[in-house]
């Protein structure tokens, strides 16, 4: 049975109330690694948003028009990862061509979008929650923007923290994890508003 939530609602919910990063804690490694400065966080966030939106749409088509009719839904992990990997390569080519500086800054984390679990997570949630195509695209796009919002917010806080007197033992990943935890707590305030299933 199709999910009753409307596409705009899913879009806003995936950004705020069910932020894939702060509610589901998916895609944490690049979230912590590329959040030292806002420009690189924006770059990676936009790349993740683009990949997430496109792969959600493509994976919806692959799932419903290839895997379901041939009763191959148990192949969904392989199929979804293949689509994601191909799209990440495409994004890599585009960034290398049009923003070499961002390409250098993102370094190894750009190809690692392939194994960013937030992207696979969105594709799998789309199937579990029985979204239609429009809902899926809205969820993918919103999920990407939610991830972008979270990483840019963390980068902003970390830039401010550079001047803060942090205890030696908590510098770097330690304080970043604490900040991420506090951000997740504050986003919990939204969580009662919409239930995504």
């Amino acid at each position, binding site marked *: 049975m199709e999910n009753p939530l409307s596409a705009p609602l899913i879009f806003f919910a995936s950004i705020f109330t069910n932020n894939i990063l702060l509610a589901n804690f998916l895609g944490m490694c690049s979230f912590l690694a590329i959040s030292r400065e806002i420009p690189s966080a924006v770059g990676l966030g936009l790349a993740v948003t683009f990949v997430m939106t496109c792969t959600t749409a493509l994976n919806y088509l692959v799932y419903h028009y290839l895997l379901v009719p*041939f009763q*191959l839904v148990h*192949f969904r992990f*392989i199929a979804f990862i293949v*689509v994601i990997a191909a799209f990440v*390569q495409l994004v890599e080519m*585009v960034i290398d*061509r049009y923003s070499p*500086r961002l390409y250098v800054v993102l370094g190894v984390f750009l190809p690692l979008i392939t194994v960013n679990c937030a992207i696979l997570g969105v594709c799998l949630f789309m199937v579990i929650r029985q979204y239609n195509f429009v809902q899926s695209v809205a969820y993918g796009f919103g999920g990407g923007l939610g991830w972008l919002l979270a990483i840019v917010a963390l980068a902003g806080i970390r830039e401010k923290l550079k001047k803060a007197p942090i205890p030696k033992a908590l510098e770097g990943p330690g304080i970043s994890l604490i900040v991420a935890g506090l951000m997740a707590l504050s986003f919990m305030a939204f969580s009662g508003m919409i239930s995504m299933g």
Partner: protein
Amino acid sequence: MMTLVLGLLSISGLCAVLALLLEAAYAVFADYGPCRITINEGAKEFTVKGGGRLLGTLMDQGVFIPSACGGRGSCGLCKVTVLQGGGPILPTETPYMNDEELRRGTRLSCQVRLRGDVQLQIPEAFFLIKEFRTQVVGLKPLTPSIKEVHLKLIEPQEIVFKPGQFIQFQVPEYEGSSEPVYRAYSIASPASLKTEIKLVITRVERGIATTYIHDFLKEGDEVLINGPYGDFYLRHSNRPMVMIGTGSGLAPLLSILFQMADEHIDRPCTLYFGVRSRQDLFYQEEIHQLMGMLPRLRYVPVLSQPLAEDHWDGETGYVTDAVARGVSDGSQLEAYLCGNPLMINAAVKLLTERGVSEDRIFFDKFG
């Protein structure tokens, strides 16, 4: 069974479609169009197809930049100064640069992708570097693990080099390597012999190039080399010299000694040659022949692990131990070292302790 076949077909089909899509995208996004390379303020200029690495592109245009690792970013030799273009410096390059080089825009040419017009500054000497087609005319085992490779130049027919310099040897595709690779080897023969060169090559366990040279290379084979490279060569002064070589590190030292004999440079010189046992000593005849021509040349072979049957009563231990025993005051000395990095580091430390000024210690460190 049917599900498995269908599954495999579907996933393969999906992969094929995506691969085609990526190929199409590559054709569009990786096409950087024609790029103009300007070297040394217009001394050389050419337009090439963009997208490739600078090292390979320059090599295609006949400008050879030294590179011992063949463009894998691990030897740090292929440095050029990029005055304009070239994009931001990569994390793979910075470990090979000091602050001054970073400020000047020095880059590893094997890591720079040609995305637009670039302006380069490279040493004039690189223009003299050429690619040579050669033929193997001799392969002689010198010790159980070292082979002499004798190459006759076909085109161009003559090479001009400073004794002590090295060339790059192209190992073609073979069962141990899916692509051609380049490795650097010092020239052992005299510079006066312009039409042929001799290389001394030690077998490296599982080494791509040395396995090819020791196991597959035959007399009559054609080999591509390019060079000469390097700033390890004889400095003209009247200072007494100390030469320290281990294993195939004897090669450039021998070439320098041939030059001294040819040019009648009669300077006091002590050659320390360190190997494991007597069977590893090679070119003994040549060294004794040189001693006949250079009256003030003293030769000190040093065995680190002499065998019982060697009946050795000469110097033993590490080569640097023998140098420590032989050199007490180095304040007037000039030193030439060639061999493995451990020996070079130990020798530089020892010689500076004995008063040899660092700017008079020249070395060729085997990576």
